[in-house]
């Protein structure tokens, strides 16, 4: 699909755009979830030896790639400056990969560093890129996926709470905690997990969870030692600050950019130091090393994010019945035609449908009185049928079990690693 569209993108870049009679260049940003970004850039994915799409950092310290670890650092390092990829490295890495640089040690094409015989040289030749990218984009213009970062970190924090309980009180207490957490999220925060997003929460739900993180910390009060409890509470505090800046659509001030950089670094450093079993995932690495740089360079992250495409999934689904034809492809084409016509944006339409409402004053939409009907407890209860309630209960139980299983896996692996380290 993108192969068909790629020549059109190239034509757009070469031709530029006329703005008030001036021919301007196109600054192209690539945004999608991590998997789609890897597909577009033909990268091996987040489990590859060099998982970052923007820099040359390796996954974790290994004897096999010790030379690269020392030179370009690993994702697990929380200090030091990173070496950015160049846009041509994707293409040259792919050439090396295809010519066998990744397997037989033949030479690659990166900055005069040949494939050679050592694993580090072979890795450096292909840079975890399998094929030439479908689109050539400057790595500094790959957006740091604010929505998926929020989804990922939010989910990780809930698993982290369970891991802390497992570490302090054992498996049975962990399972009890996840069940109570599921009930708390439904009753106090008003969010429920959804079947997509891996059974996690939708992006909009991540914000009330963050805002009411005190309730989660309160639930943990009797389950954790003071050290873990304080550390977990601080992690939420830092994340809530980062989350708001990450998802804001306005241009940040110089102070906000500086504060964001400080908070993002403090968050990842705190997680790594306070919870030793926690690995820095590619998403956390994006937050630590590249998010602040992107914000500094373009003044904002949220505006460039991947929210639009997620909204289009919903719109496509809603219109599916209206544009239903003989085949899926015909229906898709009918939808495209309808959307192309809906895109008519002449001056008069823009003025009519453009934003004319002024934003509400700060706090104007919040309840101020105890009896305010906007408060959940003052609303009339809508009757829910028994079957729906039973399904929701089953979904919550499954979510709690999955959360416990994921946390138990991480903690048991950490315990095994600790034992092995002690033996050695």
């Amino acid at each position: 699909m993108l192969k068909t569209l790629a020549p059109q993108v190239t034509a757009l870049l070469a031709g530029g755009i006329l703005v008030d009679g001036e021919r301007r260049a196109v600054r192209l940003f690539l945004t999608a979830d991590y998997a789609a970004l890897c597909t577009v850039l033909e990268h091996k994915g987040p489990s590859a030896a060099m998982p970052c799409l923007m820099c040359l950092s390796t996954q974790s310290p290994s004897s096999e790639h010790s030379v690269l670890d020392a030179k370009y650092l690993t994702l697990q390092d929380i200090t030091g400056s990173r070496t950015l990829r160049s846009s041509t490295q994707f293409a040259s890495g792919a050439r090396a990969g295809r010519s066998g640089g990744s397997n037989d040690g033949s030479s690659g094409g990166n900055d005069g560093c040949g494939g050679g015989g050592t694993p580090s040289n072979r890795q450096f030749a292909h840079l975890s890129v399998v094929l030439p990218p479908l689109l050539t984009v400057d790595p500094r213009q790959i957006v740091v996926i604010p929505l998926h970062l929020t989804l990922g970190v939010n989910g990780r924090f809930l698993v982290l709470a369970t891991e802390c309980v497992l570490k302090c009180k054992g498996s049975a207490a962990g399972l009890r905690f996840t069940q109570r957490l599921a009930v708390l999220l439904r009753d106090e925060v008003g969010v429920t997990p959804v079947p997509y997003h891996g059974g996690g929460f939708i992006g909009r739900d991540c914000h009330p969870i963050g805002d009411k993180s005190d309730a989660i910390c309160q639930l943990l009060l009797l389950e954790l030692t003071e050290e873990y409890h304080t550390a977990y509470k601080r992690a939420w505090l830092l994340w809530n600050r980062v989350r708001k800046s990450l998802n804001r659509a306005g241009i940040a001030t110089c102070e906000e950019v500086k504060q964001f950089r400080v908070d993002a670094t403090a968050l990842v450093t705190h997680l790594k130091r306070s919870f030793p079993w926690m690995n820095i995932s590619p998403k956390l690495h994006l937050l630590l090393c590249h998010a602040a740089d992107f914000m500094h360079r373009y003044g904002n992250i949220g505006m460039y994010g991947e929210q639009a495409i997620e909204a289009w999934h919903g719109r496509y689904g809603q219109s599916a019945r209206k544009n239903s034809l003989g085949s899926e492809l015909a229906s898709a084409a009918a939808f495209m035609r309808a959307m192309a016509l809906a895109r008519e944006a002449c001056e008069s339409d823009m003025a009519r449908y453009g934003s004319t409402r002024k934003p509400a004053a700060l706090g104007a939409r919040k309840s101020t009185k105890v009896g305010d009907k906007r408060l959940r407890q003052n609303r009339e209860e809508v009757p829910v049928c028994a079957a729906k309630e039973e399904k929701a209960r089953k979904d919550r139980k499954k979510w709690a079990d999955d959360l416990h299983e994921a946390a138990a896996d991480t903690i048991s692996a950490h315990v095994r690693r600790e034992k092995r380290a002690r033996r050695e």
Partner: protein
Amino acid sequence: MASVDELRLARKRLAAMPAKQIKVDSAGAHTASLSLAVQERVSALCQSGRFVERHVYDEHYRPMPKTALLTDADASDPGVLAGCPPPNIKDVHVTICLDKGGCPSSVKIVVGIINQARPKNTNNTIFAAVCPCDKDNYDDLD
């Protein structure tokens, strides 16, 4: 109020415009000319005075001055062709976004223009391509 016939004719005229053309092939459906679709939107923004300048900031967080326009000589520059023109050239920030998902499942490509208010609103983005995804079921694999 226009009659229904007139509205239909207007719709036909609109659908015949080059920027609205759709191509359908075995891969999926996509806009016939992305450049025209983007240009149409940018022109509408300019005419209605809703085009918002976006900047690239330097290390002191000051907007880099844009003084030059894109020329034919620049158009063959590798940086320009990679969507990363020099900071002194006047530019338009365009996002290209690809994702698989939704129900019915499909791969969608959406192009966004950042030089406007609310660039992530679906009404302000260009739906560039869609490719329905078929999931093989057990019987298909036999």
